[in-house]
């Protein structure tokens, strides 16, 4: 009995702690933070992954025409979110594209080699080239992530490419004829399938690529 009675006090303390702290030096009021930690930790522990309805950006060609630079649309099914990204940098053959709220993805000819700003980011990857994907191949992939201790966690996959014939796609009011290609990868720590839709001439119009277990797949649509 006496062992439990302090719980009432603890409840009181938590109520007091949830009062916001203020000031120019936020870091020194650690108690609010500690309570938040316990709260998020506990809700995190209870959390279950549920598929969320994706909130469509509701793009139109007219709206896209007002953009000064080419854009891509990314869709994260697991978060139910879409965003527009524009190119912010190039390093050799890798382009980095960023959303307004600073989620970035870096791609070599459209194949994702890194992301940032997505919690469990793809730190780096060795990936097939676009021509390997369009011509069909078997190859290995490595994805480098960080584990909970921030140590590199390298996942290796054996992948097979398969071609599935022609598919007509509609992306923001425009139709495209594409070749549908899948890349099925299996490894010791799981498997996934990436999908690519290539236009004649080799342009990657749409892809759906797996980032990490936590982030899930990302769909990238070229809007140019």
């Amino acid at each position, binding site marked *: 009995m006496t062992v439990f009675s302090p719980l009432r*006090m603890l409840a009181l303390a938590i109520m007091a702690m949830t009062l916001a702290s203020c000031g*120019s*030096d936020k870091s020194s009021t650690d108690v*609010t933070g500690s309570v938040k*930690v316990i709260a998020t930790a506990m809700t995190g522990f209870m959390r279950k992954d549920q598929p969320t309805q994706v909130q469509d950006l509701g793009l139109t060609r007219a709206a896209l025409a007002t953009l000064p630079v080419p854009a891509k649309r990314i869709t994260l099914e697991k978060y139910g979110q879409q965003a527009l990204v524009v190119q912010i940098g190039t390093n050799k053959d890798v382009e*980095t594209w960023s959303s307004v709220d600073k989620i970035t993805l870096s791609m070599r000819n459209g194949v994702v080699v890194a992301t940032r700003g997505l919690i469990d980011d793809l730190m780096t990857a060795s990936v097939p080239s676009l021509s390997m994907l369009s011509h069909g191949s078997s190859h290995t992939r490595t994805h480098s992530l960080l584990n909970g201790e921030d140590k590199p966690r390298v996942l290796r996959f054996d992948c097979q490419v398969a071609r599935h014939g022609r598919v007509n796609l509609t992306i923001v009011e425009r139709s495209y004829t594409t070749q549908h290609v899948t890349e099925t990868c299996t490894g010791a720590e799981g498997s996934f399938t990436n999908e690519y839709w290539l236009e004649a001439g080799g342009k990657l119009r749409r892809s759906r690529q797996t980032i990490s277990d936590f982030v899930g797949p990302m769909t990238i649509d070229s809007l140019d």
Partner: protein
Amino acid sequence: MHKKPRNTLWRSRVKAIGTGGLAIAGLALAAPFAMAEVKPSLNMYGATGLIDMPSGEAQPDAQLSVTTSHFGPVSRNTLSFQITPRISASFRFTGIRDWNKTAACQPSCTTGLDQFDTYYDRSFDLRFKVLNESRYLPAITIGLQDFAGTGLQAGEYIAATKNIAPNLKITAGLGWGRLGSYGDIGAPFGKRPKVNVGFGGKFNFDQWFRGPAAPFGGVEWKFNDRWTFKGEYSSDAYVTEAGTRSTFDRKSPFNFGVEYQPSEYYRLGAYYMYGSTVGLAGQIFINPQKRPSGGIADKAPNPVKPRPSRSSAPDAWSTDWVTQADRAPALRNDVAKRLQDDGIIVESVGYSAGKVQVRIRNTRYLNNAQAIGRTARALTQTMPASVETFEIVPLANGVPASRVTIRRSDLEDLEFSPNSIAEMSQRVSVAGENGSTAGFDQNPDLYPAFTWSLGPTARFRFFDQKAPFKLDVGIKATGRFELRPGLVIAGEVTQKIAGNLKDRPPLPDRGRLQPVRSAVYFYDKEGTTAIEKLAVHWHSKLGQDIYGRVSAGYLERMFGGVSAEVLWKPAGSRLALGGELNYVKQRSPDQHFGFDLPVYMYETDSGPKTGPSSYSTVTGHVSAYYELGNGFHVQLDVGKYLAGDIGATFRLDREFANGWRVGAFATKTNVSSADFGSGSFDKGIKVVIPLNWGLGTPSRKTSPVELRPFRRDGGAKLEVDGRLYESVRGYHQSGLDNQFGRFWK
């Protein structure tokens, strides 16, 4: 950073001991299934085991388990940590109700053990898994329960567990002490000498594995994904609880129960215990290596901006900019703007045609390599093409902690290399020498700076023999006035609002020591409006690898005075040496400005006592710090403590790259056990949890918790802010090396 060979000595020693455990392999059971399918579970003691009995297995490496269990009059709250894959430790707070119900002194029991309605006890356990389960052999663990206590909980065991079907495992073991108190088979290693309890807290070596030994055993059957059935035969007679004290009726040695585990983070259990009572248990599992939020949510860094080739853009490579007037503040502003969102403050910038040095203050990232990595990428965006060498000097408490040198072409080449983390870590170099800032462009707006905060605060008192914890809540205001780099005046004032710390805990008689810590109750009670700290701190770099600190003022709640510290820590060394000397005076319990000690402060349960009306002392230590490798750190302090006693403190910590720290410490001084009081010497555990681990957003703040079974006056150290070792080592080679995974984050 060049990898140094890890210290493998420690590991090989563990292996050597491990192979010695085959002696009881006779318990092994042949089985077709080699791998464990049923996860190792916990018993009512919060240790790996069945219901009340231990088993031969261990928890996953690094797991912290918090367990509360209750049956009949017995309640146990336990914190367990799997220190290495084979070694684990537990710290337990036990309460036994109805303790004096049948005592002879009823109805008015006031003295000795009989005065307590509920008997509270603390205990430490240590377990060592000598053998991992294999195809034919079981997992075998040797354990010491309450190995340094009053003896009531003490027991030793050897237990073997084998999975004999995918969801069925059996355990058999032999127990001594209280685990050998029912159905014994004789005393294989001789008589158990009577424990000399004294003030407790001593290792009772001569008792271990002595006296009657009794077998125990049981089964665990996981009958579906979430439910497990457990049954066991207990070798614990509960001689005191069920016998002498008659707190419950032990009718049978058999216990049964079911456990429900819906997620990997918690488990609930219900049991029928000893043929007479019902038991309940709740267990929470936290693994520092696993963030509950999945990771830290943060904005993407600046990408690397490669330079154009010299042939395609010869103008971009011109070095005329070096001599341009006004170029320096412009470059400093450019990089500062790029780093603003990252909470990295640029203090100053100095350059030549091929090299730039920036001095930064990292206010946001607990991972220091991440702050360095973001700064380096921001420099690729802003510095003219001729600059090939980036020197980043992180400031800790205003003092250069190291100089990290990065080649710009490495950043350009490796940004998207499949092995970029390892490759980059080999190319970054860390030095202790950081050069002068003569000619640097300083941000003129940074000093003097005043920052403040106002927010809630709480103060806990754990395990005061009346309750597991008590607490006060209130408001805390802090202020920091930074006059120039390294010189700061910092203060902290608290106002208590509510709480029960004013409830008087037992105040046992103390020996001849000044109550430097045992009078803390009066500081809790009197310090309604308290100036907890108000001091000036000066940090400085005295030489290439030498750091200094001087602090003066109200340094902590109970002491004020002057504190000076020197630290030698080369940037590439695992060893550091330091020294600290303090002249301090004990503060009045009201924690205003005075140093008068009121006579009531010396009171104990046996009545008023007297003591000096003021107390000052010289205290100080020499310290050695060493990083063993694999995240293990040791620290040895030798010196004179606050009560004038002389001795040494040993600390062992396991630190994780994400900032978690779990460790234990013990201090032995020339104070006799009688003068020290309960517990005999100062010891405890410390857990440091980084806020970003739970919050999932960047923060440098950590939340340290120290748990001591007894806080007495022997072996007490001054608690001054800004000690040097922890503030600089994170920017040194092994600190950055351990955290390098986030360099590119």
